[in-house]
């Protein structure tokens, strides 16, 4: 799974470089994040702007990541669009996640949090 990791002080921006998050690769995303948390990451921006398709089992993996980082202030989902944004809306999980239009506004959001 292609991911890019950028660190901005205590913030980590994890960008998913795959066009697809589904039951086949969501477990790997979960694992990679749990390794990052084990290595000290505490506040995370998950940039899904390159993701064109996402299913509910990868939404489950993202919820599990939310639980791992601790509180909702410590995870922002950035760049959800198209069917990915719709998945968060249909399941009403956009009530639970902090959602930002892109990684930059997610950085602003976290700086003021």
């Amino acid at each position, binding site marked *: 799974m292609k991911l890019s990791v950028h660190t901005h002080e205590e913030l980590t921006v994890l960008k998913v470089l795959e066009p697809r998050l*589904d*039951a*086949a690769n969501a477990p790997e995303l979960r694992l990679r994040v749990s390794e990052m948390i084990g290595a000290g990451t505490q506040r995370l921006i998950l940039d899904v702007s390159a993701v064109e398709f996402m299913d509910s089992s990868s939404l*489950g993996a993202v919820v599990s990541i939310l639980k791992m980082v601790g509180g909702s202030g410590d995870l922002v989902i950035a760049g959800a669009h198209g*069917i990915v944004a*719709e*998945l968060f809306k249909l399941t*009403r999980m956009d009530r*639970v996640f902090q959602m930002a239009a892109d990684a930059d506004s997610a950085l602003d959001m976290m700086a003021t949090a």
Partner: protein
Amino acid sequence: MSTYNIRLFIDSQLAHVRLLGSAVRGIGQELDLPTEQVGQIELMLVEAVNNVIEHAYDNETGHDVHVRVECNPDDQLKVIISDRGHPIPAAQLQRGSAGDDALLPEPESLPEGGWGLGLIRMLADSLHYECNQDGNHLHLCKQLA
């Protein structure tokens, strides 16, 4: 325009589901459906196929997952997902018929699953499930814009 149809098969492996999803996305694009509708069709299909692999076949490889796409480009698209595994329990299938609230898990409980059938119900314009000697068949219908 007349009705076309195509049948697609994959083995019951989650890694192969993207081939079905992208094939049906290609068909939706060919029919010039709006992008949002193409995404919704792919999502309802993928949720149904994931359920077949995970629940009907208990994640056992070596079984066929069959998808039939029928389309009347002026009118509607039908996606029929068939398997020969365990059928969907009636209680699960009826979930949600009592109203939207029962359809999906509560967001605040931070669920990690349980959205599949609810999403399928929300994304399909109509749904029909049939079990016969040929297996289990989930008929999903989408009205085209």
